[in-house]
């Protein structure tokens, strides 16, 4: 009879279920070992014990190549603006001031010609794609292991890496204006006025070559509108 079969199967499955949960209670006497992803037993030991991490007090080891918070070594940065251009979510905000002469060298020997007046990364916007790190010519922009950057204020997610004080910025701007004026006075026929109008684009010829690269790379980013389209049709 289906009636009694029903009862029996119900009793069986119910007791099975109770057994399962009771095992969990039993196991909860101990915490499971917090092993990192590197550990070979990372997936196998998932079941037994309490899996919760009491986070502020303890945390899972992160692998060294973890890609979490962005970090810019401002000393090595030549303010080439490539990272800002390539960023799909526009989370990097850069403002550079042309220096009148070479202001220093990076660790790999590239000479720095531009002051970084502003180098802000909005981590709230960041999508951790890592494109900026790949385009960085001096490898000054890197992703770090640090994943805990919770804050109370939203604005605190904007990390500033520029080290210049407002006074310095003003001074450097003044210097630039001065030298510009000098140049226009000395050479009435300059080769190209354009860089003057758009200081941001006035990059050295070498950087111009590199800047050309992203253009063929654009199709790589094309999928974005495509994805959007797809979403729209889904809706």
């Amino acid at each position, binding site marked *: 009879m289906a009636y009694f079969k029903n009862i029996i199967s119900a009793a069986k499955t119910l007791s099975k*279920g109770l057994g399962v949960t009771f095992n969990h209670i039993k196991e909860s006497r101990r915490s499971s070992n917090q092993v990192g992803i590197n550990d070979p037993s990372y997936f196998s030991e998932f079941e037994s014990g309490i899996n919760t991490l009491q986070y502020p007090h303890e945390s899972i080891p992160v692998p060294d190549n973890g890609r979490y918070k962005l970090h810019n070594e401002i000393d090595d940065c030549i303010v080439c603006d490539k990272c800002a251009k390539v960023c799909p979510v526009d989370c990097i905000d850069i403002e550079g001031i042309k220096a009148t002469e070479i202001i220093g060298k990076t660790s790999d020997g590239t000479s720095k010609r531009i002051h970084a007046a502003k180098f802000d990364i909005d981590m709230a916007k960041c999508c951790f794609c890592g494109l900026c790190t790949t385009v960085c010519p001096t490898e000054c922009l890197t992703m770090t292991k640090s994943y805990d950057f919770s804050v109370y204020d939203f604005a605190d997610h904007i990390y500033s890496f520029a080290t210049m004080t407002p006074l310095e910025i003003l001074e450097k701007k003044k210097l630039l204006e001065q030298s510009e004026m000098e140049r226009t006075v000395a050479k009435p026929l300059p080769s190209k006025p354009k860089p003057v109008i758009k200081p941001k684009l006035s990059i050295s010829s070498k950087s111009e070559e590199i800047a050309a690269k992203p253009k063929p790379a654009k199709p790589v980013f094309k999928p974005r509108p495509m994805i959007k389209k797809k979403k729209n049709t889904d809706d």
Partner: protein
Amino acid sequence: MSTILFFLPLLLVFAVLAIYGERKISAFIQNRYGPMETGYYGLLQTVADLLKLLQKEDIVPRVASKALFLVAPFVIFVAVFAGFSVVPVLPTWQGASINTGVFFLLAIVSLDVIGIIIAGWASNNKYSLLGAVRSASQIISYEVPLTLSVVCVLVVTQSLDLQVISFQQGVLSNSYFADAENYLFGLSFANVNTTEIGGVLTWNILRAPVLIPVWIIFFITTLAESNRAPFDLPEAESELVSGFHTEYSGFRWAIIMLSEYGMMLLTSLLGVILFFGSWNTPFPNIGSIKLASWTTGEVGSMASVFWAVLWLLIKTIIMVFIQMWIRWTYPRVRLDQLMSLGWKYLTPAALVLLFFSALWRLMMV
């Protein structure tokens, strides 16, 4: 009066602990820790929550019918709390000794349906009303097998007084009934007299093993009666946004929760008293090792009070634990499943078992 004095604090403490316990148990079942931060091992978490609730604003929706809305939680609470009045805690003390004890308990507890309906209706919210109607239909439906299963026990014990039932299930039965005799499994023809042995052997569930399935039915129905998972359709957070108490907040919500935990405690107590030897010790006297007598104490002595309360609470807490355990194991049933379980399975089974209980009773005499 003594009922209030004893049970109200007990209920409050229990509720606080039970909520804590529930959170912990749910956490453990889900491989979590549960509350850990407030107090040692999160012990003060419920207290903190309670304090928070008490200072919350008492919101009454504008379109609610105000008087009913305000009074409903108290109706529920009073109905549940009145049930405690007949529960015996000690051999020498029980709230109110009325000879219709269990019957009264079942009757008065069934009143909380009214409270739930008032709450649901007065909220003037369709989720609340749905929850209330579900709750009422569920409670009414499950009252039938519940009563039947209780009657099974009553057939065996031949009394409605919970204190009498308690006395029957232990070594003290002789001190209360002059000629009481307990036999192993109630089979008098087997002639294994367990009157002096006591302990677990004289608990109802072993005095008449037919009560084991009865207890299962009893237990399932009490779950439904107290709207506990997997029968928590009336509250159904995911579909009905907590059902009849959707609109309640703050202190009144706390009272509703208190009633719910009170109901858990009450049904657990009732289960323990009816099936698991009430305040009697589980240890039997084995020959000269009078474990049972030692862990019972002289009636009236402080030791006796201690042991009785201890055993009763331990057993009750175990029952409560089982309720929680079940809650976090099973998914919520559907309404039709609920009804078919109640009417097609539990009720007939309870009827059949009632018949067998009567047979067992005949063998006991």
